[in-house]
């Protein structure tokens, strides 16, 4: 089931893992590839080359030490706050939806949305940067108006899978949501 090759909107390979815990509890995990050594080397080299050329003209060693600090801190911030390895969506019928992000550094953030607040899960279209993409989102109920939608929570925000992957997740989510 998870052997199908999915890609994100930039054409990079991602994998989708569906786990059935029971008939009304299902977990979807989208994993993007790890930070590649080549990419780290590339960024580091470019920062250092710029630092060396600046150093060549200014003869100031502070430039070199700051380049080292910038690369180290930048890499740490990147893996701690930007780079998401796994994004998972746990749908439990009659209870709610839990969305968790695990970053490359090991940090995890989790949010839970109660079923009473959820109106529906839908696939929507949006203009993102210079592209128009599909994304999966949770519609939250408007407490004052039972038909209205108060806000939208986008899912799989960092991996941004393509439509075929979203449709698969959407269909199995709807199976569970329609039961309760």
């Amino acid at each position, binding site marked *: 089931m998870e052997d199908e090759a999915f890609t994100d*909107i930039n054409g990079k390979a991602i994998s989708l893992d569906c786990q059935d815990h029971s008939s009304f509890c299902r977990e979807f995990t989208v994993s993007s590839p790890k930070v590649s050594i080549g990419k780290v080397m590339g960024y580091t080299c470019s920062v250092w080359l710029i630092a060396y050329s600046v150093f060549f003209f200014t003869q100031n060693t502070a430039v070199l030490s700051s380049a080292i600090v910038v690369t180290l801190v930048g890499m740490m911030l990147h893996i701690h706050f930007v780079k998401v390895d796994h994004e998972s969506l746990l749908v439990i019928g009659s209870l709610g939806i839990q969305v968790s992000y695990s970053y490359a550094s090991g940090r995890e953030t989790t949010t839970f949305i109660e079923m009473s607040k959820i109106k*529906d899960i839908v696939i*929507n*279209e949006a203009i993102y940067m210079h592209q*128009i993409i599909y994304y999966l989102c949770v519609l939250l109920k408007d407490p004052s108006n039972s038909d209205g*939608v108060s806000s*939208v929570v*986008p899912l799989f925000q960092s991996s941004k899978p393509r439509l*075929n992957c979203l449709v698969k997740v959407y269909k199995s989510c709807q199976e569970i949501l329609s039961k309760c």
Partner: protein
Amino acid sequence: MGQRRRGAALNASSQTKCGTPAEVSGRKHNICMVSDFFYPNMGGVESHIYQLSQCLIEKGHKVIIITHAYGRRKGIRYLTNGLKVYYLPLQVMYNQSTATTCFHSLPLLRCVFIRERITVVHAHSSFSAMAHDALFHAKTMGLNTVFTDHSLFGFADVSSVLTNKLLTVSLCDTNHIVCVSYTSKENTVLRATLNPEIVSVIPNAVDPTDFTPDPSQRQDDRITIVVISRLVYRKGIDLLGGIIPELCLKHPDLHFLIGGEGPKRIVLEEVREKYQLHDRVRLLGALEHKDVRGVLVQGHIFLNTSLTEAFCMAIVEGASCGLQVVSTRVGGIPEVLPEDLITLCEPTVRSLCAGLEAVIVRQRSGSVPSPASIHARVRNLYTWRNVAERTEKVYERVAGEEVLPLDRRLRRLRAHCGPVAGSIFAFVAVLDFLFLLLLQWLVPDQVMDVAVDATGPCGLWTQTPNSKEEIHAASAMRGSSGTQSSL
């Protein structure tokens, strides 16, 4: 690789599922209408695009509309029958027209053209920078192009010389051009130095069911003249200011009903003040489209004083409501109505007064045809279905033509648009092509998802409404308003 194969299989299955209607009525097109002007902005071009799209959808084509974002209305919206509208976040520069740099709109437009599998790009209005941009990019991408011109221009002043040059560049390699009247066709052919054979005339239309006569609304002890137009110089409001006192002195039972708003309102207010005509000249201010009929049916005579007009919708609406029409003989107006339904005058106060008096005399003697009979004649003159049929023929013709490859396009630009402008725009065309290659390398075509088809013969909206996806698609659309900011 596997993914592409699966996509192909999916396409094939959807085609077999709904392939029958498409095969019966010939080839179907994926049409993209582009203009800066669309709802919520109101006007003739906007309603033209909307009505034409609806009729083309009815005929089984797939139609989408691209315009720029209006305030908080940005992203993707759906209108009646699954008509998809892209409100792209491009900067508005002047008069609801976007700024043009020839390049910055390419990534988004390319994305839309590819994901919707567009075959014909149809741009509207020569005032719209986005329409020209889209034509330019579509030609770079090798798509067929159609352009509709909705307005008349002069040749003498600096601004028209410049816009005419731009139009020449923009239209010199466009496949087909549509004008709304023969006068407009002459004007466009001269302005853009086009081959008249690739210019078609397809008039505008009115919805005859919206404009039905109702003689009971008239007051028979008086004669009412209705004027509905924007109160601007182009519409000849100064002439109207000369006509009102002259006719009101001669005919004590004459009343004027004037709908519309604009900078020339002050002229009419001055006339009303000077000749003490407050009880006989009523200024209604801006009217919404739905209220127009209610005003029209109160009158006996419809007066149009335009100084320039490509195709006058207002006189068709007036005649459709059963009014006697008096108009100036300018632009495309003489072609619009048959001679016995309209009284044409020169654009001078004296000529218009003479024309109006002749009609008033006929109205008094009761020798005018009844409103119902006028309506019956006008009803079938201009319908949107007819417009859509004729536009469809243009698409058929265009789809068979080839799009000029880059080298021939450059040669044509240099040969057609003069040595300086031609060379500049040939250079721009080369840059645009290189930019397209860069984008194709950054985001390859096969990475973009094909959009779910909401309109046309295979559209989700035309299938049975119990399918679950559709309901969710609908709710997704409702939820789309606030989503862009959150991403």
